[in-house]
């Protein structure tokens, strides 16, 4: 009988005092209750008298040793990952970062008149400049607005991503055309004819963003610089909304090549809510979001070759960017 009791005690589940305040395992009333392990023990022939339940023995949780890497590799179906190359000693946090996209906007005014050396205003200011009530130009043109979108491929991390990028913008200006032979005191402009100048600047740029400090020291500023080749389509339309033609029969449209430089500083917005930024990264792959401002110096006059229109400018742009 004592052997049966020992077996029953061994088969008794270990129950902590917190689980059973009385220290006695009570059978569950519901049908889903697990059967009492002791029920599997055959009743002793002398079990007519009630036997007091054995008191649970005090248990002691012994921490198991962690499996070795070899053991995990042996049992796992997932191939072990290679150790990422650590640049500057530590791996960058977050998911892999490969691209960046930007939308920016800023004032713009092409330097069409830069080559003009005559009296008064150059041709661009004469047409698009600010005028008096007679339509005569009195001041330089107001700055227009140029929206730009940009995209870049981040190729290598050298204290920050180094890559190549491209961008495309749009600019347009519009004004009443001048009357060829105004008479007397009449307004010198025709309200029936609007002349339009438009351009679409493109650029292929090398881009470097110094993100080391922002990545590892939580300073949310990322200085960067872009430099590269630029090309801009341009066109001039006359009052009929067709491409203008001059006296020589030459159409007023074309393209001009040059270079541009965009140094700037971006404010990484992750610091506002770091947990949200991490979740955004895990959910969408967007590593960082920025607001930024940059200076843009563009020289678009065919590198000085031949007789080309000058569409460069020095301006500031501001916008939003994401890295993903």
């Amino acid at each position, binding site marked *: 009988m004592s052997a049966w009791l020992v077996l029953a005690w061994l088969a008794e589940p270990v129950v902590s005092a917190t689980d059973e305040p009385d220290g006695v395992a009570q059978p569950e009333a519901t049908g889903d209750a697990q059967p009492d392990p002791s029920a599997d023990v055959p009743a002793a022939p002398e079990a007519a008298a009630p036997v007091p339940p054995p008191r649970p023995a005090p248990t002691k949780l012994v921490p198991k040793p962690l499996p070795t890497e070899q053991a995990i590799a042996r049992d796992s179906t997932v191939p072990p990952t290679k150790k990422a190359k650590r640049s500057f000693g530590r791996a960058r946090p977050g998911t892999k970062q490969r691209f960046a996209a930007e939308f920016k906007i800023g004032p713009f005014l092409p330097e069409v008149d830069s080559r003009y050396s005559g009296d008064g205003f150059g041709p661009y200011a004469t047409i698009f400049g600010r005028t008096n009530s007679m339509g005569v130009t009195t001041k330089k043109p107001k700055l227009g607005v140029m929206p730009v979108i940009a995209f870049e491929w981040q190729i290598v991390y050298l204290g920050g991503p180094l890559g190549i990028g491209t961008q495309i913008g749009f600019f347009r200006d519009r004004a009443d055309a001048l009357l060829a032979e105004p008479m007397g005191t009449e307004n010198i402009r025709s309200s029936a004819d609007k002349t339009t100048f438009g351009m679409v600047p493109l650029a292929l740029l090398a881009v470097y963003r110094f993100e080391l400090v922002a990545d590892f020291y939580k300073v949310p500023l990322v200085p960067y610089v872009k430099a590269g080749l630029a090309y801009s389509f341009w066109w001039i339309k006359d009052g*009929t909304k067709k491409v203008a033609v001059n006296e020589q029969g030459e159409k007023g449209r074309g393209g001009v090549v040059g270079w541009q430089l965009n140094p700037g500083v971006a404010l990484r917005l992750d610091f506002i809510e770091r947990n949200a930024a991490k979740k955004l990264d895990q959910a969408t792959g967007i590593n960082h979001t920025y607001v930024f401002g940059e200076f843009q110096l563009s020289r678009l006059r065919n590198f000085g070759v031949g007789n080309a*229109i000058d569409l460069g400018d020095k301006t500031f742009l501001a916008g939003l960017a994401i890295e993903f």
Partner: protein
Amino acid sequence: MPRRLSAALTTGAAPVVAALIVALLGAREANAAGEAPAGANFDIWYYATDDNGERDRLFSADDLAGFVNRARCECNQTISTRIQLQRAMASYDPTIRVQTFVGSRCDIGQVGNNAQVKPCVRILSEAPIAYTKAINFEFSPLWLVAGVDPQGDKDLGNATPTGTCDAGQGDAGIWICIENGAQPDCQSDEFQVMGTQNENSSADAMTAQGIRYDFDPPQTLPDNFSINAGDSAVQIEWDQISTGDVSGFRVLCADADGAPLPGQGIDAPSLIGINRGTTYFIARDLCPDGPFNGEDEPIDTGDDSTTGDGGSTGDFDTSGGGSSSGDVSSSDDATATGSDSGTGTGTGTGTGTGTGTGTGTGTGTGVGTTGTALPTDGIESLGYAYVCSGHISGTSQEARVSGLDNGVEYQFLIVAYDLAGNPVAASGVLTGTPRETIDLWEQCEIDGDICGSGGFCNCTSEPDRDARGWFVAMGLVGMIARRRRRR
């Protein structure tokens, strides 16, 4: 005789059997009299006709809404109609008269005691059996708006219309009266087809509609017209109207003498084309040889008076008060008034005498009917030869006319029209002179070719020092990047 019947007759049931026989015979006679048709049993189709009055195509829902206009009425472009009564299981009562009319509010006009509503012209008065075969006939659009003299003949062919093609708008169609015999002739409560019933609109219209007729040109018109000179072009602007039934505008152009410009003008719209409110119709160009089948249609007579109000000047401002610049000016003496020399509206008698004096001073201050007859020549005739623009939306406020010669004076006139295509001169005659203008490209040339040459590639010359330095710098950056990647 069946045995049971003979037995019944020999017994005391003889009176009952006799009563049954009498009842059966009575029922048989009633069945022989037939039943009265219902309005819903009539199928009605409308068709457009060509200049010979031949049926061409079935009216669409668009036609019902905007086909009938004043020009078609003046040209007597008839509407072909087919009516058919569906056959019933039992025969129709041959003693019933079914009368067919064309017009609007025929039930009220039939009573004959309403001075405003005249009786409709009667097309047919026959027994129902005649309607079971398709009945085809044509009627002038004039009958949609005009009734007949209550004291005169009502039948088509002999009736005299009380209205003209000059004015009026509303819905009309075929009316069918099925007499119940209680009183002689049709009574207003006996009309069971009331103008809106047809098979043309049932397929694609949620609600039944009759034929919409509109002989009135737009009454509410834009004002403050101004004209500005451009390079080989002029731009005409006006103040937008907030209300009215203007569907669109077209610009008419003429030289300083009022002659059409060569290369301009459009063909007269098709007689049988679907009108979507993008053009206008004038009888002189729609039927240059006069009304179609005018001699065969009695309704063509008696409306000489349509030309009589030449003094009407319309309720639009023809003074051309818009600002003008330079030598472009809107003519303050624009007339655009109706004159008394109208060509008549299908009367076949040429010019009507009328009562108006037709002096037309052109101040444009008149009200009421806008120019019932157009001048026969000049830009104010609104002839298609003067049209120099496409359809301009009714909500537009400007129009541009290109292809003109700089320094040459031209006449312009804006025509407004409604969905049915009834035109009216919205502006007076404006004059303008296109002038050469200078755009940026030309200004660059004037200032010494500041904008350089056009074209997309200027890479034939040798790069200058600045460019060479730039390329060297870019090459160095590329080499450094390559070496870094090799590591």
